């Protein structure tokens, strides 16, 4: 009886509840996104408009030239350096990490757990703990201020997380598959490249994305080991750009936006892999 009576009221209440829910969520999203909106507005304004009206107002006119000017002032250089570093680090790193993870999961040996624990230490080491000896080492090898040197360091620091993610995946590959291939006479190389790695493609893609974004964003190693302006990667270049031209907000914002665009594209197209990769690392 009560159900029959309350139906219209209940329906109405549900509707208002839904609307309130959306309104609250939209407001939260808007506040959450304010810094990004401010960045975009600043990047398309001309300097005069910014000086008079501040960051958070509708631009009088869209000034695309901010982007080309920022690009030509140095961002171009930083951008391509970041592309080179990320493009070399990620594939090499993933091959090394998956091979190690494969050995840890499917090439039964006594020390596997200890080796894994040894690798995991790297996840918690503050980079400061390595800087001085690395500076001496890189100096001795003539790798200071080179992208090659930086790539080698990135590969080394990437190993723990990569092995963690790939090991998590390889553990879900049934031993029976590997055993069957062994019995058929396939070598470990064949099994790895023909069976394990193709099976692990979802994990590889997740790792590529997480690792790509992390490499693209890395700051401290680049700051310590890159010295000349022509070698700087984006995050470092932007901060230095800021200390030099701290009043040219329009160009700076455009420069920041340029550096963020590749990450946004990756994020939009491969979003589900972020979740998969992170949960892979935890499980």
């Amino acid at each position, binding site marked *: 009886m009560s159900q029959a009576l309350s139906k219209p009221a209940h329906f109405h209440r549900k509707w208002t509840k839904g609307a309130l829910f959306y309104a609250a969520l939209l407001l939260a999203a808007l506040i*959450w996104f304010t810094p990004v909106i401010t*960045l975009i507005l600043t990047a398309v304004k001309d300097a005069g408009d910014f000086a008079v009206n*501040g960051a958070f107002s509708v631009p009088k006119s869209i000034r695309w030239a901010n982007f080309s000017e920022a690009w030509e002032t140095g961002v171009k250089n930083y951008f391509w350096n970041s592309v080179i570093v990320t493009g070399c680090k990620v594939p090499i790193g993933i091959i090394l990490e998956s091979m190690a993870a494969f050995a840890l999961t499917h090439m039964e040996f006594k020390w596997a757990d200890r080796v894994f*624990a040894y690798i995991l230490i790297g996840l918690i080491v503050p980079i400061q703990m*390595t*800087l001085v000896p690395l500076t001496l080492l890189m100096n001795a090898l003539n790798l200071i201020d080179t992208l090659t040197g930086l790539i080698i360091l990135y590969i080394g620091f990437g190993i723990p997380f990569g092995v963690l993610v790939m090991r998590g995946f390889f553990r879900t590959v049934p031993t029976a598959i590997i055993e069957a291939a062994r019995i058929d006479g396939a070598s470990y190389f064949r099994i790895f490249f023909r069976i394990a790695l193709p099976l692990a493609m979802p994990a590889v893609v997740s790792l590529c994305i997480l690792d790509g974004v992390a490499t693209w964003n890395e700051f401290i190693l680049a700051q310590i080991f890159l010295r000349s302006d022509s070698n700087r990667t984006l995050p470092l270049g932007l901060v230095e750009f800021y200390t030099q031209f701290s009043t040219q907000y329009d160009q700076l914002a455009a420069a920041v936006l340029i550096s963020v665009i590749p990450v946004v594209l990756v994020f939009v197209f491969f979003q589900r892999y972020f979740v998969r990769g992170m949960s892979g690392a935890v499980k």
Partner: protein
Amino acid sequence: MSTSAKSSKTALPTSASSKASRGSRLYLLCVFLAPALLIYSVVVVYPMVDSAYLSLFRWDGISPTKLFVGLQNYLILFTQNDVFWIGLKNNAIWLVIALLLPTSIGLGFALVLNTRFRGSHLFRSIFYFPAVLSLAVVGLIWTWLYEPDLGLLNQVLGALGLKALERNWLADPGTAIYPVIVAATWNGVGLPMLLYLAGLQTIPVELHEAAKVEGAGPIRRFLYVTFPLLRETTLIVLAITAINALKAYDIVYAMTNGGPANQTQLLSTWMYFLTYNYNQVGLGTAIAVILFSLTIIFAIPYMRFMTRKT
């Protein structure tokens, strides 16, 4: 035909050939493991050990002789180095806020966005988005928001008639660390949110239905059903957040560079100053060792968890 080939090969790994195959297995194991282990050991492990060793010397990083001083560097830091204490205090503040704010905000977002509704994916992306930005970029963006004259924060305060609250946020020595932590929080919410969303997916819907039938409201369902089942996720979230909080560096460098008057130094930034600006390699590496020791405290439960399920 193939079956016969198979059966002949199954017979292979027996006692007669085990020694030879063990040798080749060892070789293969090296091929698979060695490259990763080698580069990791050279780039991460050896420098870590060497840092600990160097922290026992007085050295400027250039001269060929180092003077062994035992634990004196640590003693100097704790008794004579005021900025070290500022860094330690700021790290503590940062850690406490990082364990409270991004984690609970992330959990809140995850709870709201766990249900599917029109646009839930878009909202997930919006709330996660700051986490993919580099901390240097986050630092720059927020530096503009805090800018005293043209920055959004003071403008909003002015528009709301709260001019009294306006200030030069990043220049106030007593409080400048807090606006930096707020910026870091904006970036730090994404990861806990993601992990909690993944954790929530593993909770069977039937449990909630059952609790609902029993008459439990949403708050009691959260307290007695959801949260206990998220215990493992919470442990991971807290550990990762703590480890990341102690790693903070770039955002401070980008926003305040430790200033004003060293009031926003962290152990990590002060290590950089001492080592690379003041050539005090012994003190710098000693700070790194202290920072690492602090990290280990929070990392132990995490590492236990990671190596447990084998």
